């Protein structure tokens, strides 16, 4: 499968899932293309579209929590940012994604406490 077809397939698979979770693809189209391309590369290498901005380790259970779309496994954290960590998805009401910030997981935990 070529990269463009791979990106299209991921859009097709992920759009209905994130829609149910209250998210949509980031309107910053160039960013989406970049991130999807990275995921297509992971699919070719490992058969799995991992998050391009989170690290895999040797722990399968941990790695499965960063398979895109990983929103279900980081819900409160991402809802607080109105975006997922890599920014492929944003809350449906977001019109200006550049105004959204990444909140480090450590700070988010502290805020919750």
């Amino acid at each position: 499968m070529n990269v463009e077809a791979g990106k299209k397939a991921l859009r097709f698979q992920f759009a209905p899932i994130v829609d149910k979770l209250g998210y949509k693809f980031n309107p910053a189209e160039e960013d989406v293309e970049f991130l999807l391309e990275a995921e297509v590369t992971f699919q070719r290498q490992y058969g799995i579209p991992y998050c391009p901005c989170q690290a895999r380790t040797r722990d399968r259970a941990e790695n499965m929590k960063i398979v895109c779309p990983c929103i279900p496994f980081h819900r409160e954290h991402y809802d607080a940012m109105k975006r997922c960590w890599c920014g492929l998805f944003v809350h449906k009401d977001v019109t200006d994604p550049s105004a959204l910030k990444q909140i480090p997981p450590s700070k988010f935990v502290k805020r919750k406490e």
Partner: protein
Amino acid sequence: MKKIKIYALSTCLWCKRTKKFFEDRKISFEAVDYDKADEAEQERIMAEMRGKGGGGSFPYVCIGEEVVQGYDPDEFERLLGCGKK
């Protein structure tokens, strides 16, 4: 000048933007791409990140003794001391 160290992923958009932030300001930094490092180095980086309370979310930027996880230009400026009015 504070020492700057960046842990990144070669696939990560925000890691690229973080590196560009420092390049644009002609501020030198040391950068390691976690996904290009060998297994021993990966374990060392992950232990360091977890030790500071961060998980495996990139970018991870050390400015002097301070740590910023995520692309946060305002925080980079503040820690560099060049954003002061």
